[in-house]
């Protein structure tokens, strides 16, 4: 069964319709790249998928949960769905280790020793073992973002969402974050990522979806989509990316 099903989703902010009937499915282990111009609705779609934005109509299922407005049901969903944001959003008053252990301890009631073991394991995965006791403001942007990824992973999600996670980083730091994500993809994590990193989408994403004015304009296997765009909009978009 599909890990993510989005069916005819509409979403408006006031009178502006930002999602105009989006449908897509994601199979377990797939990596989906959502690309498109700013304002095309890709970030909104991602936020709808874990219930941070409410949809006006349509249906979203993810990791066996249906997105609804019920806070209890949303919490159950979010135990299985991790999200990483552009601005990292680490908790500044907690150390790296505490950032990672907090949710497992209080949400999943994991014993402290076990939470610590998990935290050490995910920190190692993102290459920051030595930063366990550091505070977020002592880390670079790239390191903070890797901690944010580790924090999500510590909840052992079935699906990971990434919302322009490298947009605030310079190229070098972008690279270290993308490497972590690529490793995650290789390990079989189901991922949906909103990204401006075309090369990364092409290399890592099994499927790329091009959004334009709130609709899916074009979609397909990444390599094929980038090599041979069918619509003038995507051709233009891909061309403008090669600077």
């Amino acid at each position: 069964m599909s890990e993510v099903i989005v069916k005819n989703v509409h979403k408006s902010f006031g009178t502006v319709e930002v999602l105009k009937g989006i449908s897509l499915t994601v199979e377990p282990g797939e990596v989906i790249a959502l690309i498109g111009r700013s304002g095309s609705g890709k970030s909104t779609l991602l936020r709808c998928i874990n219930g941070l934005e409410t949809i006006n109509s349509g249906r979203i299922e993810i990791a066996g949960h249906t997105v609804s407005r019920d806070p209890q049901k949303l919490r159950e969903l979010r135990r299985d769905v991790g999200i990483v944001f552009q601005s990292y959003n680490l908790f500044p008053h907690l150390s790296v280790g505490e950032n990672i252990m907090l949710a497992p301890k209080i949400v999943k009631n994991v014993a402290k020793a076990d939470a610590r073991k998990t935290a050490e394991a995910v920190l190692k995965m993102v290459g920051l073992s030595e930063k366990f006791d550091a505070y977020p403001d002592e880390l670079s942007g790239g390191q903070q973002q890797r901690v944010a990824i580790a924090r999500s992973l510590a909840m052992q999600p079935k699906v990971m969402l990434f919302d322009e996670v490298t947009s605030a980083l310079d190229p070098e730091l972008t690279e270290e974050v993308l490497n972590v994500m690529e490793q995650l993809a290789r390990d079989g994590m189901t991922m949906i990522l909103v990204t401006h990193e075309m090369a990364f989408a092409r290399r890592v994403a099994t499927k790329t979806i091009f959004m334009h004015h709130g609709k899916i304009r074009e979609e397909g296997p990444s390599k094929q989509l980038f090599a041979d765009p069918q619509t003038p909009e995507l051709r233009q978009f891909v061309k403008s990316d090669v600077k």
Partner: protein
Amino acid sequence: MILRTFGFSEFGFLLSALVWTIILTVIALGGGGIIGFFVALARTSTHKWLRIIAGTYIQVIQGIPVLMILFLSYYGLSLAGLQLPPLVAAGASMTIYASGYLGEIWRGCIQSVPKQQWEASESLAMTRAQQYRYVILPQALRISLPSTVGFAVQVVKNTSITSIIGFVELARAGQLINNATFQPFRVFLAVAALYFVVCYPLSQLSRWLERRLHVGSHR
């Protein structure tokens, strides 16, 4: 008539009255802090009616002089048959006054925690109570320290208003001694100095906390 002069025993009387000023301040900040905390929570609640009720409370308290609250609780209630001792009337009035201001100060602090902190903690499946307890309030607390301590200075000075209903705190003690000595300069300079001795360190603490906050240290 034999006038007393302002000597050690008079100064001792001022000191004992200063203790009452401090007790009243502690009552106001303690009681006002507890009520103000819940007012701030209600102000930032997701329930519209809680927000409206708390907002109205703050507006009313801030919109009337403490003196009126004091008169209402002392004279008003006594007319209604409820004769409050001055300490209780004074403590209750100052508590209500402090709760209105602390509620508003802390609302601002809670709301100045970035929205993304709510989203990040929500996305980690925390309940709203857990978000407050582990993510939002610890950050808001740090932000609130300078302004809270700054407000405490106001409370220390404003307790002098309770002298009007006969509560013998520092200002009232000064009046009593002046009536007996007719040495207003000595007496009230001593009174002013005592207020200063309490308030100045608090002001400095507030400034120091503010500087520390601006440096952006995390602890």
